[in-house]
């Protein structure tokens, strides 16, 4: 198990080193370099205008599916149900449509448990691109369904969806087992008549323990090889590296104990099985010295672990706030996230849950001067190697902000603001190279049960260089629309 490298600089060195090492096999490094360049280029030249797919996945996807009702209705066939003009009105501000007395809207609202759909201040083009994406996905889903039925039904009959041929395999196995059992019974009863006990079950059970252990250890080894995940995923934050080295120590310690105790347990079960030879067990009720040692040794080992653990925990939770950190607010609701950056004043505006409305989904105090330049962002960009203060706030129930690659988790509690401080050390592009996965993205997940679409609360995090971050920040919209024109003018 590799202990993760502590600082980014060394990590970058490591990456370049790997590249140098592979210098002579062009086919290995060239695609990586090309892809890195491409990714960098695409990041620079990509249109700031989000596509329909992006808008859908970052927003609508939290509560809607194409072919299945979730928090809101399935969106498949929506354009047949409602016309485009109505949909644009609805998406912009569903509460206003309901308030206008539109019967369809009122019924919809009541049917779906009076869960208000958030308002999206998208342009007509943006909404149309989302609707086009929905239409596209309808076709994809329909094709998938047809494909599933068709491919399986090669023999003519349409195979129902389900387990495939699993049940047949299982049934066959059970029948085979029953036949074996029956055969064994017949054979052993023959021998029983002759006065011979064919099976010594006590021995068989003892031997099975050894077999179980050997097969079990082999399977454990196989899993380690297959998943290579006996540490956490690649750490992309400063404290992540410390956590990982502590995890490595804990892993090896417990793993050795796990193997040793199981060898003893199953080994004894095998060695000391009663074999019907009249052996007597050893009368051995006590040994104070032995007990003393196996009380004190675990106690010492655990003390060391605890001291190390408390040190790391203090560093993570009570560490110093560095100069010029990036501060942002994550706002969790059923079912999604919103993110707010302070504007040029570097101060987040005040908020109050009573101010939440369809057009002010985070309840920001419009009268607060600090709030005027606050930015509402569709996804979070962070500069690499700068400390980040996540301020966490919930609208309805408890959620949990979980970013496993940054080793970040903190519950988001209504009525009790929480926070987490960390420093990302790997840009998204670096992670793509390191993990050898060019689709890699940091994703924020909810990790506290919060209702129907708990599993679907996503937000993309992107770590970029300082310059890219500043460029991205400059393009973001302000939270309050009236300030938008000003920013536009400045830009």
């Amino acid at each position, binding site marked *: 198990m590799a202990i993760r490298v502590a600082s980014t600089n060394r990590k970058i060195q490591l990456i370049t080193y790997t590249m140098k090492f592979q210098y002579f096999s062009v086919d290995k490094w060239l695609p990586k370099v090309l892809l890195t360049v491409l990714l960098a280029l695409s990041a620079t030249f990509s249109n700031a205008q989000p596509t329909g797919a992006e808008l859908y996945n970052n927003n609508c996807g939290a509560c809607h599916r194409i072919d*299945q009702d*979730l928090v809101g209705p399935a969106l498949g066939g929506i354009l047949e149900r409602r016309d485009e003009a109505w949909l644009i009105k609805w998406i912009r501000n569903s509460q206003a449509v309901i308030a206008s007395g539109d019967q369809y809207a009122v019924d919809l609202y009541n049917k779906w*448990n009076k*869960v*208000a759909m958030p308002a999206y201040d998208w342009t007509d083009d943006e909404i149309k691109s989302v609707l086009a994406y929905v239409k596209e996905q309808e076709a994809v889903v329909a094709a998938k369904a047809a494909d599933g039925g068709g491919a399986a039904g090669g023999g003519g009959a349409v195979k129902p*969806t*389900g*387990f495939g041929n699993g049940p047949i395999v299982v049934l066959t196995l059970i029948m085979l087992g029953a036949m074996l059992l029956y055969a064994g019974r017949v054979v052993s009863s023959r021998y029983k008549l002759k006065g011979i006990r064919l099976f010594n*079950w006590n021995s*068989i*059970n003892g031997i099975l323990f050894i077999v*179980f252990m050997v097969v*079990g250890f082999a399977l454990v080894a196989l899993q380690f090889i297959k998943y290579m995940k*006996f540490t956490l995923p690649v750490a992309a934050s400063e404290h992540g590296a410390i956590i990982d080295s*502590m*995890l490595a120590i*804990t*892993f090896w310690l417990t793993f050795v*104990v*796990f193997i040793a105790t199981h060898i*003893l*347990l199953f080994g*004894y*079960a095998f060695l*000391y*099985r009663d074999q019907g030879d009249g052996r007597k*067990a*050893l*009368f*051995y*009720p006590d040994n104070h010295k*032995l007990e003393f040692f*196996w*009380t004190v040794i*675990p106690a010492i080992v655990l003390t060391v672990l*605890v001291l190390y*653990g408390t040190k790391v*925990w203090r560093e993570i*939770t*009570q560490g110093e706030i560095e100069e010029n950190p990036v501060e942002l607010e994550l706002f969790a609701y059923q079912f999604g996230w919103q993110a707010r950056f302070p504007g040029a004043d570097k101060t987040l505006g005040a908020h109050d*849950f009573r101010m939440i409305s369809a057009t002010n989904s985070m309840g920001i105090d419009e009268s607060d001067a600090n709030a005027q330049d606050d930015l509402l962002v569709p996804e979070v960009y962070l500069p690499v190697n700068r400390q980040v203060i996540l301020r966490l706030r919930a609208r*309805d129930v*408890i959620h*949990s902000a979980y970013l496993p*690659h940054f080793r970040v988790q903190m519950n988001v*509690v*209504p*009525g*009790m603001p929480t926070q987490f401080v960390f420093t990302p050390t790997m840009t998204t592009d670096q992670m793509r190279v390191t993990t050898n996965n060019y689709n890699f993205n940091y*994703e924020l997940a909810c*990790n*506290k*049960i*919060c*209702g*129907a*679409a*708990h*599993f679907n609360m*996503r937000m993309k995090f992107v770590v970029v260089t300082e310059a890219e971050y500043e460029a991205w920040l400059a393009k973001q919209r302000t939270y309050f629309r009236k300030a938008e024109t000003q920013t536009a003018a400045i830009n």
Partner: protein
Amino acid sequence: MSQNHEHHHDHHQESFISKYIFSMDHKMIAKQYLITGMIMAVVAALISLLFRLQLGWPDQTFPWLESLLGDWGKGGRLDPNFYLALVTMHGTLMVFFVLTAGLSGTFSNLLIPFQIGARDMASPFMNMLSYWLFFLSSVIMLVSLFVESGPAAAGWTIYPPLSALPQAVPGSGLGMTLWLVSMTLFIASSLMGSLNYITTILNMRTVGMKMTRLPLTIWAFLTTSILGVLSFPVLLAAAVLLIFDRSFGTSFYLSDIFIAGEALNRQGGSPILFQHLFWFLGHPEVYIVLMPALGITSEVVATNARKPIFGYRAMIGSLLGISFLSFIVWGHHMFVTGMNPFLGNVFMILTLVIAVPSAVKTFNYLATLWKGNLKFTPAMLFAIGLVSLFISGGLTGIWLGNAALDINLHDTYFVVAHFHLVMGSASMFGMLAGVYHWYPKMFGKMMNAKLGYLHFWLTFAAVYLVFFPMHFMGLDGVPRRYYNFTGFEYMSEWMDLNRFISVSAILGSAAQLIFIWNFFYSIRKGKDAPVNPWNSNTLEWTTPVERIHGNWPGEIPHVHRWPYDYSRPGAPEDFIPQTVKDDELPEELRSPKVKPVPERADAPAETVVDKVLFSRFLNLFGLKKA
């Protein structure tokens, strides 16, 4: 009703109702707990299969789901709300109804009077009441599966505000109300049971049964009951406050909430308060579930290894240590809830301390097996299985108890793997070991051993195949209680493994049918049990095979030694029952002289108060005593 049965044990005519239904006989109540627990276990297991189906095959439709579940399975797919409800009910049923009442209720009732040498519980009436409250609470919990808005769906930990607001999840409507009512009755039942167990153990031991001569099962039941008495009332308090928040507009747990289009007029409460109250029970609860299983294991391992349990006093000491420590570690469930990080330090230190007595127990089990003469009865197999699961699940506790590591592991599949191994499966193995071991005592028949072996090996394999791979998912950051994993890029790679786990779970559950068949078949058709089938030392094996009220036909036997005199060198056999007097043994085997214990009269099985209470109770239903 039987009365005055100390010296003449002729059977009194018992009516069907007083014998099988409102029975005050501890043996019958034990069976009632066991059967109810088994029914709840079957329901909880079927529930888990339903959601494993969803996790294993998220893209497939199962049309029969719609016929089975109606709107909850529309189009052959599990509804996400109902998925959460199933997860909640699986946890609730398993933790409370199967592993608390089903395990502790069954074996405390069966073994406490038997093993300490008493005719019945201190208060047989309260014992009966305890079972019937439990029964009522089980019925209410099962009924909640059928209400229109679905059963409770906020997780078995029912954190508010999710559990407090019906707007947040449909399960928090009537389903949650029923959950709370059911749990209130359950807590009352558990308190009555626990008080009864403690009183009986402390007051009604037979002559010569000193505390240091108690079998470890009884010690485990005693510490378990003390934990229950001290911690369940705190859950009751939490539940009552939650009922107030839900129904009477208070804000103990609620503050600053905007939901379903309105800002709630609830200010000043804290959801974290609930978590503190919940885990003040919740953590001892883990040991309430586990300790009886460990007690049963101690007894089963010693008997079948034909060796004294190694370090009897250390075993008692570690039980007491675990009990004490379990009250001051609850905060390790809350490292990332936003609790003051200073408390994180404190709870981390205390949590890792609790690993020491657990380690001592493990090593003592290993030492007991060492140079034994192991008889692999099905009970012994399950007991050894328990030790293995206790090790595998316990070690990951060292990871999770470490606050810094918990940041990434909290609420992931790593936690699911951890507690299903150490608490769920290990306790279940203890329960199964107990059933196989004491079945002859309960029903006077033997279970089929070969079916028992098959049951064990299939179950043991399935448990590891289901729960071990979950560690890897958890390390990779896959959260628990997710309806599916297709949304996140990094989670989707676990699809195949999820399917594998689901298949293993289905096969493992199917293996339980072997046990159920064996259990019910043997009641009628099993071989007749001898008086002491396992050549055990403890007192329950001195009672006749057939059930009699008052347990012993004549006087209650006196106890002359500890329960673990197995394979003493020089003894004629490899066991010396607790009732054997020293002067029946060769000189060198006599226990060191102790002060003679003053003789005293047997405690009556039924107190006067009980008799009066019981006749009033029957009158209430218009049932006169037979």
